[in-house]
């Protein structure tokens, strides 16, 4: 194995047509490698800088923007939601205070109305009472008068019966 290898090595060295030195440092290898380095590097640089890299950069940039946009949108929506919630609470509180106001108003109105009605009915009742009292007084007076009349009649009747003197009721009344 070592022998065959030795053969190929000398063969290559012979083909190359120069002293088989240390190939990486052999000046005869410099020119062709540098020329092809220039060609291939220029080719690669051209392709990468003109086509590949701008493309990759674009995609990365776009994705970064997109993610940032999405996050921003989510934040905005969150802020909006919070605003909406605050607004809802605000309007709810408003509604509550308004409802309270309406209730109070209604109660006041009802109270005044009731008062008015009560006053009216009280007045009516008072009038009725006064009327009734007047009538009672009249009836009382009348009754008293009647009582006097009856008493006079009774007295004249009693006197006539007792003493036989006919005393008119009027006269009896006079003496009563």
């Amino acid at each position: 194995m070592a022998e065959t290898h030795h053969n190929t090595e000398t063969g290559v060295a012979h083909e190359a047509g120069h002293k088989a030195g240390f190939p990486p440092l052999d000046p005869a290898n410099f020119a062709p490698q540098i020329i092809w380095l220039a060609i291939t590097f220029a080719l690669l640089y051209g392709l990468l800088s003109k086509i590949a890299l701008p493309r990759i950069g674009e995609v990365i940039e776009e994705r970064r923007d997109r993610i940032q946009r999405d996050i921003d949108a989510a934040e905005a929506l969150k802020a909006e939601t919070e605003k909406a919630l605050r607004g809802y609470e605000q309007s709810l509180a408003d509604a509550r205070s308004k409802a309270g106001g309406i209730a109070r108003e209604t109660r006041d109105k009802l109270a005044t109305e009731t008062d008015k009605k009560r006053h009216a009915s009280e007045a009516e009742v008072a009038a009725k009472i006064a009327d009734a009292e007047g009538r009672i007084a009249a009836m009382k007076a009348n009754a008293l008068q009647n009582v006097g009349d009856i008493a006079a009649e009774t007295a004249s009747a009693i006197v006539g019966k007792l003493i036989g003197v006919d005393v008119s009721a009027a006269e009896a009344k006079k003496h009563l």
Partner: protein
Amino acid sequence: MPDPIHQFEIKRLIPLDLFGLDATFTNSALFMLLAAVLVSGFLILSMQGRSLVPTRLQSLAEMLYEFVANMVRDTMGHGHDDHGHGHGHDQGYMKFFPLVFTIFIFILTLNMLGMIPGFFTSTSHLAVTAGLALLVFVTVLIVGFAKNGFGFLKLFVPSGVPIYVLPLVVAIEIISFLSRPISHSVRLFANMLAGHITLKVFAGFIIMLLGAGGAYGILSILPLTMATALTALEFLVAFLQAYVFAMLTCMYLNDALHPGH
């Protein structure tokens, strides 16, 4: 035992001539071309859908993109002048992102291709790593002078240094600056070279012990374990070297944009 150097042999596949220069299409060139085609093919095809919810391949492509983009931002985004809060304001440095990305992905792919048994590792050749390092060096010089004019030379003149040691300091600074492409290229080259030689040597031990048969075959467990651990380490090194190369590119470019520490 296989020769650990053999794997670095350059094979001349198609002899070519470019204005008198030897432009032979070698196995090294083949793997560089393969890397370029694989990378661009992968990055372009995986993004075909351009979907917001990525497929597996698309997320891999995006991960690579983000990784290098973060590296560029981290290294160049601050200007290292300690009053630069302008993280998002000065986007000028981002125009170097394609260059850094290409360097990173190209080296990474070449390193990783080299991890496949039988494949050639272009980055284990000094010519390739030096070529890349010189590309960065020249870019830094051009950007530095284009952006700052001769003010770029302030890079070599630190502030608050007494005049009598200034020449010495400037000499040291210049050596330091010139050492950049050297260490830049030698590091990548030496790491890949050493890693592959080590792996090959251990693989050679395994084959040798197995070939000896009998009790020696059982002994081959030892280098096998080592080779497995080393392979894992090599994958890490293959990645880290690409990362270091790209990150230093960012640092040097940053110096070019903001000289005068």
